[in-house]
């Protein structure tokens, strides 16, 4: 009898773990479906069947029942845009989860800690100085690294790396980067460049075409793979440096690796789409609601959730009205109430502000 009950408990335990994997798989399938469906969505009417045919045509010989404009729209306008959604949305969601793990704080994200703004400043500077492509990306990366080093430097100076101080340091660095951005805007040619920078900073995937992705997609994919591979170590790192080391893990090394790879991801995302706020913060929390805190499930879930939500948000941004809504507007209006509800639900006093 005793054994029977224990075995039943064992069966339940295994079910619980597999459920998370199932959710991840389901969401991944949903992502693929939404991707294909979104290819058929847009201001220009194209039937779903034609969309599928157009997408398959580079691979298989299919009789052409559509005109060249439709093909252009699907393959050169919508396809790169959706791929950008995958890279940026998945990348930002993933980065947020990684940040929250390695900094042992569920209230941080790359925009909270000033990394997005830092990348944006250097990118904006590079653009106004006339650089393009790789140079802008490298500049963005440098900006992001400087930002996170400043944040860590402040916590080291105060000799306090508790949650509160971390967030405060992030606000300081973010604010500083913001001021620099304002300076760049002030000095920019008011006729043309200023409006360009302002709009880009609000976050937009509009008019993303393949040449824009050419230089970023490979580093982004590599970083995503690396971060997905080391997800178990995030669990260990979240226990605290001493415990991590006692379990044989090079805490400082893994943390540095995570910071570098996430910064590459974030810098690349900023180059494609500008800054999108709240996303890196909210996506991991939504993922936690489904799969829990275990980073083995949380990290891949945050990636897929980020992909799905970004595609949905972008679909809204580009179809709601003739003129496009900037992404930060949507993520802010939707994300902030959701995040507030999450905070209330989790009853923040349980998690440490004083760790």
């Amino acid at each position, binding site marked *: 009898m005793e054994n029977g009950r224990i075995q039943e408990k064992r069966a339940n335990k295994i079910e619980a773990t*597999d459920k998370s*994997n*199932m959710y*991840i*798989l389901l969401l*991944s*399938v949903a992502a*693929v479906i939404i991707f294909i469906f979104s290819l058929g969505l*847009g*201001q*220009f009417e194209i039937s779903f069947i034609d969309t599928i045919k157009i997408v398959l045509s*580079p*691979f298989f010989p299919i009789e052409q029942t559509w005109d*060249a*404009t439709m*093909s*252009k*729209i699907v*393959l*050169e*306008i919508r*396809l*790169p845009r959706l*791929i950008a959604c*995958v890279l940026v949305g998945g990348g930002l969601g993933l980065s947020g989860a990684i940040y929250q793990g390695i900094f042992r704080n569920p209230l941080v994200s790359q925009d909270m800690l000033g990394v997005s703004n830092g990348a944006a400043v250097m990118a904006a500077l590079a653009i106004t100085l006339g650089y393009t492509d790789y140079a802008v990306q490298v500049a963005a990366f440098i900006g992001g690294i400087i930002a996170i080093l400043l944040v860590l430097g402040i916590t080291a100076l105060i000799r306090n790396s508790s949650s509160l101080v971390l967030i405060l340091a992030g606000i300081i660095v973010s604010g500083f980067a913001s001021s620099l951005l304002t300076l760049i805007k*002030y*000095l920019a040619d*008011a*006729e*043309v*460049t200023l*409006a*360009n920078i302002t*709009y880009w900073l609000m976050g*937009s995937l*509009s*008019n*993303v*075409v*393949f*040449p824009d*992705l*050419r230089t970023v*997609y490979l580093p982004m*994919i590599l970083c995503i793979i690396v971060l*997905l591979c080391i997800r178990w170590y995030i669990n260990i790192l979240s226990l605290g440096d001493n415990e991590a080391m006692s379990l044989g893990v090079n805490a400082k090394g893994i943390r540095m690796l995570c910071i570098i790879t996430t910064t590459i991801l974030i810098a690349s995302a900023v180059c494609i789409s500008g800054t999108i706020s709240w996303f890196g913060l909210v996506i991991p929390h939504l993922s936690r609601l489904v799969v829990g805190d275990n980073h083995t499930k949380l990290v*891949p879930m945050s990636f897929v959730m980020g992909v799905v939500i970004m595609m949905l948000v972008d679909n809204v941004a580009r179809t709601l009205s*003739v*003129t*496009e809504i900037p992404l930060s507007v949507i993520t802010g209006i939707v994300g902030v109430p959701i995040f507030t509800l999450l905070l209330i639900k989790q009853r923040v006093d349980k998690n440490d502000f004083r760790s």
Partner: protein
Amino acid sequence: MKKVFLIVLCFLMAFSMVACNNAKETAGNNQATQKQETNEAETRIVLDASGNEVEIAKDVKKVVNLWNSANEIIVQLGARDIMVGGSSFLQSRPWMTHIFPGAKDVEVISDGQTANVEKILEIDPDVIISVAGRADALKEIGEPVVELTGGKSADELMEQMSIVAKALGSEYEENAEAFFTYFNKNLDLVEKVAATVPQEEKIVVLHGTTSTTTIDDSVVGSLLKTANVTNAFAGSEAPEISYEQIIAADPDVIIVAQGNHAEYEKFMTDPLYKDVSAVKNNRVHINPAGMFYWDAFSGEMSLEILWMAKTSYPDYFKDVDLEEETKYFYKTFLDYEMTDEEVQYLYEGKGPNGEWQDSGKKSK
């Protein structure tokens, strides 16, 4: 489970990489086929303001405009019938819809900043007018985008207009030439007469608002020079100014930019400004705003220079009949008969029905 996930991920990545490469080929093919198609019809190459060589059909039947500053130019060049897409100001400026009622039927495909690419492709225009930096996606996919870059003097404005005219076709170039003759006539007249104003009578003009000024390096800045007035903020690099600076500059004349009625009221009623010479002598004027801002980038600047001269040195420009010139301009170049009342409204900075126009929106 993990294996399945990895497989899906690999598939997506492989797909995207292949898609990237394929799309590049397709883009190349598209451009090739487009070139083929357009070569079969007749095309010509036009050099735009950014230095790009743009291939445009000889016979332009559809033009789309993405830049708020170019709507008036296109209409003025006589292309209103072939304008099938415009930016938001096409329908939001009261004088534009008054003089060009068909504007209401033109599809708005840009808010001045981002263009709706899919709608534009649906329209399938023969040429797209834009300003540099806002039509990169359309350029990448091979659409005929003619980029303008703005300008900092009357000559540059005319250069940009001639690029638009060239893009539209030879008959429009003729209209442009005719306009340039008129514009240059006005400029020469003002320059000659204003040069006779002695140094001690030269006045200081603030063209701007309570917090911004027009800088030297702009079209209006150059018009101020032509009219032989001193810009109150000559030498300023940035447009932001402060109250103290205005008091120190003590301009003789204040021209409130872009028809901003609220700013006009501020100057006239706020006791802070009551000791400024321009306010004391009742020489605060609202810059007229018509189909587009007269003091931004518009063919209407050919009237702006006359009005500016007359406002600054009324005695010297007694012979200039502003009402007649205005009626002549709108009749000749925009095919519109202005009534006396409408001319009156125009020079009060008002809209065609005597209403105050939207104030303060900087052109995008």
